[in-house]
């Protein structure tokens, strides 16, 4: 409950933020704090320097391009996405954000924080993999783009490495999306989730909570049987824990993947 000693900086620009993150080995970006502060309370991780990103207005915008592409700043909160007129261009984003925790968490928690923490039970990593998003990462003097399905590297690990900052997430146009999950209680901890997206009728399904990173599958068709077969074919090895056995997670992965695809196809 009580943090270790830490130093704090509140940069006014992305360049300053990146410089700080590079300068200090034990520096961590502080976005919404809805995960990091809890990690620090448990003393599971204790950064030396917290680089507070909350003054970086450049990272908070949500823009809709004329081609329907959405650019979401990494510091946009879940509430920002839910209430943004632009984000309605891809409704699944707001729908999934609305399922995360509660009002207080949604008011502070950020899209960038959700994906960069890459907790295997988070909703946004599989969602962004399914919709084929692209992450923009800024490091010292350079900017690069990484597709979502290459961004998530391991538990709590992403392509945004030390000294780098995720600045925005680009979501291509589309509306044929689905999302299904089983959580402990309403909007509680997730046991398994699955996000689906159809582009030209071809389904992309990303399953979360079953591996260190979202598992991307591309079933041969949107038929439930094809989806389930694809999941079985992936030979998932999910973890067993207090909430679910590996078998149960494997089973839920099949069911939820099929449901997400059905939803994406316009079914229920």
């Amino acid at each position, binding site marked *: 409950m009580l*943090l270790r000693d830490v130093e704090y900086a*509140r940069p*006014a620009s992305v360049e300053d933020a990146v410089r700080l993150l590079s300068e200090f080995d034990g520096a961590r970006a502080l976005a919404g704090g809805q995960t990091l*502060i809890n990690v620090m*309370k448990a003393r599971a991780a204790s950064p030396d320097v*917290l680089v507070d990103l909350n003054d970086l207005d450049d990272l908070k915008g949500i823009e809709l391009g004329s081609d329907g592409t959405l650019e979401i700043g990494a510091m946009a909160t879940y509430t920002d996405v839910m209430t943004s007129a632009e984000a309605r261009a891809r409704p699944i984003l707001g729908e999934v954000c609305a399922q995360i*925790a509660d*009002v*207080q968490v949604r*008011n502070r928690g950020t899209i960038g924080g959700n994906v960069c923490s890459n907790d295997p039970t988070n909703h946004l990593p599989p969602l962004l993999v399914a919709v084929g998003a692209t992450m923009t990462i800024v490091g010292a003097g350079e900017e690069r783009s990484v597709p979502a399905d290459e961004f998530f590297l391991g538990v709590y690990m992403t392509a945004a490495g030390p000294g780098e900052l995720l600045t925005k997430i680009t979501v291509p146009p589309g509306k044929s999306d689905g999302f299904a999950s089983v959580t402990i209680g309403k909007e509680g901890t997730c046991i398994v989730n699955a996000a689906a997206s159809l582009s030209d009728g071809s389904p992309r399904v990303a399953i979360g909570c079953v591996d260190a990173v979202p598992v991307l599958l591309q079933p041969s068709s949107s038929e439930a049987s094809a989806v389930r077969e694809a999941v079985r074919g992936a030979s998932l090895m999910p973890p067993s824990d207090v909430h679910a056995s590996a078998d149960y997670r494997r089973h839920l992965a099949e069911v939820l993947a099929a449901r997400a695809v059905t939803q994406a196809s316009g079914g229920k």
Partner: protein
Amino acid sequence: MDVVSSKTITVEVNGARYEREVDARRLLIHFLRDDLDLTGSHIGCDTGNCGACSVLVDGTLVKSCMLLGIQADGAKIETVEGLAQDGRLTALQQSFSDHHALQCGYCTPGMLMSATALLRANPHPSELEIRHGIQGNICRCTGYVNIVEAIRAAAE
């Protein structure tokens, strides 16, 4: 910009201005309770789940256990102590009492802040919207039945 381990910050809480030195590691809830003696906001967990620490920072409902005090420099904060004016309860506070929406009273400050935020944004919420609005506030005494009813009645 500076990298600091502590800072003298200025906050406005319930209309009153405070200037204090705070260690970077001190949570906002501890700053409010221990440094400013505003003990109305409470602590019920250590993972950001219970919402007993809920306050409004620059008009936004947040859990003050997941903010550092140092982050609140320059902010306007509203806590439960700022709801009633000169001892006159707000309609929401009165409704909580009328509907027996509190038993031990420990979750109540956070619950009231969440309800206040809800009604400011949505003056006539449905029952489902009310439940969503207080989903981040755990109560172990009431089962939420009377809390939902109190908020609904205050909204009328």
